[in-house]
């Protein structure tokens, strides 16, 4: 048992324990998030140092910081193009009051100064105060809603892998059979079904009992209170990624099955299941990993819709509302959080390549 293995499996174990506690509807112990984060960073750093990737990762982190900075700038500029200010209420405010409010939030300063103020705030970790939720710091709103969105995202991604990969394996192992065809029809249907159709349909069947009245009230139609509430949103959000992963796993396995080393293994008389799960599957998972980056992005975007459909108190709901409200600090904060998560997810995927496939060298 090397240190690397201890760190790696520890990470997996801590995550699994957290999921188990969460699904049992128990409160996570205090400091759990920090433990997971610390352990994960430790494991990642160890892998980076051992893999001689320090220079590469430093470069990527600097790039990521630059990208996030550019996004902050871009969003800031885009927002100022939005016609209508944040305080153009339907009932026009007296000009003095409006001027006072704008002075309070620094909206009367020249644009360049506002931008500098914003960047200085960011550097201090201060995202500003929301315009609409008066007196509430954006950081607080994010701290309140992000965990919910994160839960939804993580469970959907888990569902995608736990359902997608076995379906892909099953289909590939029975290539061109009835099972294969049926599973692939299911998968391509999953790709073609938008979440804003799946969600309402699930609600209709499992909450309102149409057309099977026996199912009325089986699952709650909205909100996010306990694990029962997770089921439909997670299925809605995870269905498409699961279908994509299933198709990818299948095609990737079919390709690897033709490889020379598989023929060698068969010739040696290795049992077929051993070949399939030990040799073929392991080698097939690299493309699946490749797609994980875009999938995370898709799940991030998809979570808006799912959160709206199911009335989940996550970030997605706020984002759409904040844009229509012209709540500049909130929009900027949300955009930054989403982009940071995306950038980090992509970096993690790239690093995982080297773990899954030691042949890949990053540099």
């Amino acid at each position: 048992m090397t240190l690397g293995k201890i760190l790696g499996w520890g990470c997996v174990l801590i995550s699994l324990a957290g999921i188990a506690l969460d699904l049992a509807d128990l409160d996570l112990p205090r400091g759990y998030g920090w433990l997971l984060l610390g352990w994960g960073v430790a494991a990642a750093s160890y892998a980076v140092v051992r893999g001689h990737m320090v220079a590469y990762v430093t470069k990527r982190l600097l790039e990521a910081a630059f990208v996030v900075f550019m996004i902050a700038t871009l969003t800031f500029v885009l927002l100022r193009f939005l016609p209508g200010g944040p305080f153009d209420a339907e009932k026009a405010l007296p000009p003095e009051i409006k001027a006072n409010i704008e002075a309070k939030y620094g909206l009367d300063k020249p644009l360049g100064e506002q931008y500098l103020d914003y960047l200085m705030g960011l550097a201090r970790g201060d995202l500003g105060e929301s315009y609409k939720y008066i007196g509430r710091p954006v950081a607080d709103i994010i701290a309140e809603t992000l965990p919910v969105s994160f839960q939804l995202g993580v469970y959907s991604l888990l569902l995608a892998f736990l359902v997608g990969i076995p379906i892909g394996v099953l289909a590939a192992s029975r290539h061109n059979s009835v099972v294969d065809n049926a599973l692939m029809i299911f998968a391509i249907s999953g790709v073609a079904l938008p979440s804003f159709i799946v969600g309402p349909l699930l609600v209709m069947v499992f909450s309102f009992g149409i057309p099977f009245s026996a199912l009325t009230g089986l699952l709650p139609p909205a909100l996010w209170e306990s694990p029962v509430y997770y089921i439909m949103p997670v299925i809605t959000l995870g269905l498409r990624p699961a279908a994509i992963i299933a198709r990818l796993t299948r095609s990737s396995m079919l390709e690897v099955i033709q490889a020379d080393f598989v023929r060698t293994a068969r010739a040696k008389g290795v049992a077929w299941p051993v070949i399939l799960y030990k040799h073929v599957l392991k080698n097939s998972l690299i493309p699946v990993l490749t797609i994980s980056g875009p999938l995370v992005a898709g799940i991030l975007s998809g979570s808006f819709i799912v959160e709206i459909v199911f009335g989940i108190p996550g970030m997605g709901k706020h984002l759409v509302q904040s844009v229509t409200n012209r709540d500049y600090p909130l929009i900027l904060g949300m955009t930054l959080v989403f982009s940071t998560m995306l950038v980090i997810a992509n970096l993690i995927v790239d690093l995982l390549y080297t773990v899954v496939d030691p042949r890949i060298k990053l540099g």
Partner: protein
Amino acid sequence: MAATETTIDNSAGAPTSRNEKGKSLWSDAWKRLKKNRAAYFSFYFIVFVCLIAILAPWIAPYSYETQNIDRALLPPNSINWLGTDSLGRDMLSRIIYGARMSMAVGIFTAVFSLVVGGIYGAVSGWVGGWVDAVLMRTIDILNAIPSLVLLILVGVIFNSLDLFENPELKALTGIFLALSVGGWVSLARLVRGQVLQVREMLFVEGARALGARPTRIITRHIFPNILGPIIVMLTYQIPSNILFESFLSFIGLGLQPPFSSWGVLANDGWRAKSYPHLIVFPGMALFFTMLAFNLLGDGLRDALDPKLKNR
């Protein structure tokens, strides 16, 4: 890579006799596509949906916006085949007109993305060096913004611009521009990658040795050789545009009622909760169209590049 290797594959796959007439890559690909039943059927299904979209004013039984409160929320019946919505508008007509909006947005956005992304990617791949680096970093940044955030922001901006008097046209251009902002990026990446591969090939070198100018080399030699992957990409982009249009309309930032698109209808259906026909029929229209485009995309990819079969 696509062109040369496919031709080699063709000759290996189908034994050709000496006196047989030469077949172009395209007629060959069409033949392979025909063998793929699902893709072939999908192709005709898409043609059918396009025809419905174009002919909507003539084939829709009723107007998409005429309200008839006395006949609101009816399930499918002999007068309104697919029922009526909460304001008594005929669902079949609204779905037919929805096809018009959805397909228009999907196809025009894809074409626009192709032009912008194609030029951008071709320049990036052909010129190379620091130009390439700058152009690609820009794309990296655009890619790191979650697409829906970008879409929402740009959508709101364009929606509030008054480019046209006609409200229908105004709403359409708003969505169209918002989708194009995100759509061209992946095409630019694809074109760049393909150009990088093809530019090193011998026939390009030959053309250059003969003194052909870059524009001629790109349009005459490189473009035809990378057309296959581009067509496949477009086939996948159209449904994702349709989906994004529906996304935007669903969250209320796209087309608004009384206009009809499949996203608007899905939103109506979701709000109506317990009237299944309001969500099931638009959902089916959306589902089958997306399915057809995906199947056709798979079929085209296999037909144009048999090496990639099963991927």
